[in-house]
């Protein structure tokens, strides 16, 4: 009796999680895989085959877009790390306990506003008739209105801004767990600032760096709004291709294949990154 109750409560507790995994993650992906492996031979007539994948590799614009998305996402990840690390270090190690809370709050506040509104904020600033352009003209630094939207630099800036919080939080929590005396020991034993950073702080923060980079890279490669709004037609983001296939061309088979390819590609990059830094996936989760 007692045993049954315990088993029942275990099942009940586990059910939401299992339902979530199965219904919202496993099933859709299985569906996508099946969809992507269908070849359309006539209206409403389908056959099993790899044509959708073959099409992707035969058409340079498709895989070029994927490579471009991947490399720009890597650039965004690296920039977010370089900018985020000092901020996280300041929050975790230099700021006092009260300031720390306030700083974390400041990092979170932008998240209260939707992606869309934040992207429009950038547009307001950077468009031809926007704030920055007007200031440049007013101070005489520019003779004519300057268009700062619809180029890669703007897309990268906008993406870094959107994702940097997801870099700062895991980094700050890893660094927060580091005993200050470890840094002091690094100096005490004769290390210079750069030595302490390179041999002690960064190796210690490695699980946080890895987990922050994974989140940021995945979010960037899978983002849609920011590249579209800030990059316009020039952005050539891979998610845009997927959207086009599904919505504009109503070619679900090819869209599903692209989706699986994006997943495979980003997973490959993350796996490579983990291998190169000598981290394991479990490590990045447990140590942050």
């Amino acid at each position, binding site marked *: 009796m007692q045993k049954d109750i315990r088993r029942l409560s275990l099942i009940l507790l586990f059910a939401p999680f299992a339902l979530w995994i199965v219904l919202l993650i496993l099933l859709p992906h299985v569906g996508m895989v099946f969809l992507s492996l269908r070849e359309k031979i006539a209206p409403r007539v389908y056959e099993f085959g790899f044509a959708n994948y073959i099409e992707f590799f035969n058409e340079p614009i498709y895989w070029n877009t994927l490579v471009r998305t991947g490399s720009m996402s890597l650039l965004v990840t690296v920039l977010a790390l370089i900018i985020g690390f000092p901020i996280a270090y300041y929050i975790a190690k230099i700021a006092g306990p009260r300031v720390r809370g306030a700083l974390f709050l400041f990092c979170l506040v932008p998240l209260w506003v939707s992606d869309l509104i934040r992207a429009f904020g950038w547009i307001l600033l950077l468009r031809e008739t926007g704030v920055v352009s007007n200031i440049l003209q007013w101070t005489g630094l520019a003779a004519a209105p300057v268009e700062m939207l619809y180029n890669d630099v703007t897309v990268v800036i906008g993406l870094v801004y959107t994702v940097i919080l997801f870099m700062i939080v895991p980094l700050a929590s890893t660094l927060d767990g580091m*005993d200050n*005396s*470890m840094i*002091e*020991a*690094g*100096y*005490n*034993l*004769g*290390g*210079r600032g750069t*030595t302490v950073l390179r*041999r*002690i702080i960064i*190796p*210690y923060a*490695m699980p946080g760096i890895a987990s922050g980079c994974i989140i940021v890279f995945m979010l960037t490669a899978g983002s849609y709004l920011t590249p579209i709004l800030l990059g316009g037609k020039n952005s050539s983001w891979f998610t845009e291709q997927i959207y086009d296939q599904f919505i504009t061309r109503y070619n679900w088979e090819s869209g599903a294949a692209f989706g699986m390819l994006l997943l495979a590609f980003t997973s490959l990059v993350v796996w490579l990154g983990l291998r190169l830094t000598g981290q394991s996936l479990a490590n990045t989760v447990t140590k942050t």
Partner: protein
Amino acid sequence: MVNSPSTDLECINISKTFGSVLAVDNVSFEIPRGSFFSILGPSGCGKTTLIRMIAGFEQPDSGEIHIKGKSVLNTAPNKRNVKMVFQHLALFPMMNVYENIAYGLRCNGVAKDEIDQRVNNVLKRIALPDVGEREIHQLSGGQKQRIAVARCMVLDPDVLLLDEPLGALDLKLREAMKIELKLLQHQFDTTFIYITHDQSEALVMSDRVAIMNQGQFEQVGTPQELYHAPRSAFVAGFVGDSNRWAGQTVAAAGSAVRVKTEDGLELLANPYGAAAATGGRAVDIFIRPEFITVERAGGARAAPESGHNTLNGVVDSLLFNGANSRALVRSASSHLIEADIVLTGGNEDLQPGENVTLIWPADQTMCFAT
């Protein structure tokens, strides 16, 4: 004095305040080469601040710190030849034992062959020759301790600072490490400065001990001096166990002084300092448990010699601890007094509830003016 080669470390009138708190108040001391020096004090007495100033992590507001005769105030922490064993050791978890020890040598740009030789050498000296390839988390508490010392000693420091490194160990290991640290200090023949709030650590290991309280040194001396000839009530109360009474002096009686305690006892006491030797002064009295003899009341016994204090009481309870067993005796005024006794386990042993007389020499009744 400044350039005398026999001192490794000299601090002159060091002060440090944090906000309105005076952490270290005008402390001066010097430590002869190759000695084991402890700074003993309750938590918050400023001892950690003092050691951090010597290591260079804090800058004193005023005063001078000389290491081997040279001022180090303008030397950055990583340039001072003073190494520190931290409270939680601060071994680097991402490096193995070998890399932990080699870290400091690499920072100093020592050649690879020499690093190898020196690391292996120091591992042999701490009797852990084969642990080089182990990870830090694979070591036991005592091994970590030794690696932390080795990591510093491989750099040949002028002074090694130890900030309560035994605090995290369990009791048995702590006892063993006390002896081990003392042996390591002998072996390396380097000046150790050891910070602790645990008096037994300080007394067992040190050549000299400084008792620190509220940012000042109360007394500096050998462990025996501190124990048997404390210079202040704080030292008498802090070092070793003692029974304590508050009271007032009545009048001098020869070299002793007659004291009336707050609960009405009349005792003969040995005045420490001239102030306690005159009548009418508020005083604190300390008697160590080992000087008190416990006699059964009504036993056939000669009247106590003059120059002794006697007190009647009832055994309240027995605190059995092998050779360090004690009796807790309740006096007529309900004051609990601890006295060392021998418990053999035989029929002759004292039992709770027995009437006893406590006798102790007036000489050992330490009396301090408050």
